[in-house]
């Protein structure tokens, strides 16, 4: 990201100077202004969703889901490491509910617990990267705030595409990574 930033910044600046150097600062400030507006909407979105997610977590939704997922994860990740499987299940349940923060922590400790089980690690990484989520709350709320008349219209495309990407990822890991 650092290299990308410098490259794009330098090339764009050169072109702006060639066209009209006085446009340089207004362009930067407009970008920062957009960032402020976006962050304000995000603040509202997160305040609503993180509130509900906390309620769900306190009600034990996350715990129940991860328990229900245990048999499935055992088969998918080919490991008998129960501690790691527990962390994996928490991670997957949190990801499905859109709790990125809770997911990452459990994901990292799962990776650590799977220290020598390379296949399981790689499968877990790829499954995580599919980003499957029941309800992409951030994006739906952002759409509603941007004045969308049908904020839920991206729900189905996103869900189907993530499912496809998950299936493709699992298939590729099975084909190309040794157990």
């Amino acid at each position, binding site marked *: 990201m650092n290299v990308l930033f410098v490259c794009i910044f330098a090339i764009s600046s050169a072109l702006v100077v060639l066209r009209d150097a006085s446009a340089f600062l207004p362009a930067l400030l407009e970008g920062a202004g*957009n960032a402020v507006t976006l962050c304000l909407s995000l603040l509202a979105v997160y305040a609503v969703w993180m509130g509900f997610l906390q309620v769900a977590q306190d009600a034990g939704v996350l715990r129940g889901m991860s328990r229900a997922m245990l048999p499935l994860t055992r088969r998918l990740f080919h490991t008998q490491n129960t501690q790691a499987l527990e962390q994996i299940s928490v991670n997957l349940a949190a990801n499905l509910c859109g709790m990125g923060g809770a997911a990452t922590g459990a994901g990292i400790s799962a990776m650590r617990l799977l220290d020598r089980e390379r296949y399981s690690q790689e499968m877990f990484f790829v499954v995580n990267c599919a980003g499957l989520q029941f309800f992409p709350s951030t994006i739906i709320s952002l759409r509603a705030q941007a004045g969308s008349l049908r904020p839920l219209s991206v729900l189905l495309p996103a869900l189907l595409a993530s499912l496809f990407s998950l299936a493709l990822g699992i298939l590729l890991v099975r084909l190309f990574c040794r157990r």
Partner: protein
Amino acid sequence: MNALLPFLVVILLLAASFRKVRVYDSFAKGAGGALPLVGKLFPYIAAVLVLAGLFEASGLSSALCKALEPLFSALGIPAPVLPLVLVKPFSGSGSLALVGQLCSQYGADSYIGRCACAVYATGETVFYLSALYFAGGGRARPVVIALVSNLAAALLACLLCRIL
């Protein structure tokens, strides 16, 4: 479809109170986490959008879009969504920033706006996650697999946005 959300939320709150969760306090605790989170995101969103503003002003953005239009429209991804597909593996907050911009520029219900939202909602920040998970011991194969399946998901998401 629109009644689904209120229904689910009410079920959640009732179930939680049935389980003796102090719903009001719990909600407040969760909502309180929003401010620090946005505080953490803001620097990166600002950096990306400042860059995007400059990129736009340089004319590079429209030139690139025009140049890549045939290739990407053949694949079914509208050209303005291209930067999002490229930034996505590196930065979650950066891609969120781009989604916000595309939605306000083209409208959230336009084909481009919907594609951007669907692309954002599929896939993950592959490079960021690999740095976290494989902590230094970089592995090429799973990263390539994840990138391939994310790109496939982006293509499929745009296609589905057209027909659904």
